[in-house]
């Protein structure tokens, strides 16, 4: 029973259907499962509920699915980089549920860890708390938030092995480790496929149990939203 698939479309075979809920790792365009998102576009499924911190930008990342009209609802913390998003939202084609970023990360972690609800200070006294239970613990007010899971979760990792063990790189880790835990089926795309035993047991970020399918996507194109640099002659000044 191998977890290794030879292409992104094959890795999604028989998983996708209309009106399902999917979840994707990534923050902005960093650490997003681009190849798997592209493969979802090819399946043509529609009516998707997508749980992801952002919705890509026009033509990149989840923006691709937005463009193709495949998304019915987004659960996100920030979608400001996407013009098409605004259009579809204002025209009523697209539903949005905003969750504060930390609450969203925690809701996904909770979903993966079998916790249906938890309390947080974040959002108390704001529209985020409207319609939710607010309760006092030790004199402070907290709002109850629900765990999140998905039918299919998609993650992007730096290295992986046939067991499904994953290691992420730098801030491309972001939402990926929690998203990996919260899918009924989790599919991972990895930049490097390692031999079993090559990944150091103490350094694995996502244990293989969470990953059902894995696909090797070498040398992916990576986009940067905000290139900021310093000039070499300023070295030492910062």
């Amino acid at each position: 029973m191998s977890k290794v698939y030879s292409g992104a479309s094959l890795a999604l075979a028989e998983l996708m259907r209309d009106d399902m809920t999917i979840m994707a790792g990534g923050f902005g365009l960093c650490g997003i499962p681009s190849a798997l998102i592209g493969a979802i576009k090819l399946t043509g499924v529609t009516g998707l509920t997508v749980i992801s911190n952002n919705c890509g930008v026009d033509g990149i990342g989840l923006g691709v699915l937005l463009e193709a009209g495949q998304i019915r609802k987004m659960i996100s913390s920030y979608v400001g980089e996407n013009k098409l998003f605004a259009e579809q939202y204002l025209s009523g084609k697209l539903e949005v549920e905003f969750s504060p970023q930390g609450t969203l990360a925690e809701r996904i972690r909770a979903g993966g860890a079998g916790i249906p609800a938890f309390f947080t200070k974040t959002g108390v006294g704001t529209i985020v708390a409207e319609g939710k239970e607010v309760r006092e613990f030790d004199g402070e007010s907290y709002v109850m938030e629900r765990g999140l899971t998905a039918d299919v979760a998609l993650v992007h990792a730096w290295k992986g092995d046939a067991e499904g063990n994953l290691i992420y790189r730098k801030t491309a880790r972001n939402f990926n480790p929690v998203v990996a835990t919260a899918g009924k089926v989790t599919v991972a795309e990895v930049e490097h496929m390692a031999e079993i035993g090559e990944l150091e047991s103490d350094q694995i970020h996502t244990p293989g149990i969470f990953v059902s399918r894995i696909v090797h996507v070498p040398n992916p194109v990576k986009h940067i939203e905000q290139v900021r640099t310093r000039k070499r002659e300023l070295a030492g000044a910062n």
Partner: protein
Amino acid sequence: MAWTREQMAQRAARELRDGFYVNLGIGIPTMVANYIPGGMSVCLQSENGMLGVGPFPYEGEEDADLINAGKQTITALPMTSFFSSADGFGMIRGGHIDLTILGSMQVARNGDLANWTIPGKMIKGMGGAMDLVAGVKRVVVVMEHEAKGEPKLLEQCTLPLTGQRVADMVITDLGVFTVARKGEAKLTLIALADGVTLDEITAKTAAKFENGLDRAAA
């Protein structure tokens, strides 16, 4: 004669303490990193999963896998650690970050803060702002005193809140206020920008405030 953006950042940098873990917002707050006093060790956190944020990379050395919460390319430092967003916000929610410095659209006399949305305009989402103001030990707001001639320091916020009674200090181009987060609402002016008069700042502030200039100077 108000403070420049650089001067506001410089004033905010005076809130740093040796050994502090700090989360800096986008804009003027980012510039605070340029004014960390020599010999003071301050560690910058980025909620997308990084502790020990370094300066922007040299041209040509940008790494798409290495960005801050503003999605800007940055660098790592020798002491840097990476972690998940869930862990990043665990630090914030759990009260492990000493200080956050961030911008705002409005701050009320009682410390209510509104900086994420303007009704009627396209809603972009709150990102991590609500988590930061709710979780970080001390919240310092750095913002222009007015927006298009309208005061931003108000009796009550008119925009949807980011957090209730969360601001500890407000630094504007005209001066510095402290805010009481507990008990009775209380805004206190503790410094004026160079050349700004009490009359001017009073005229441009729509919130009642106490004059604490003498105490601050003492």
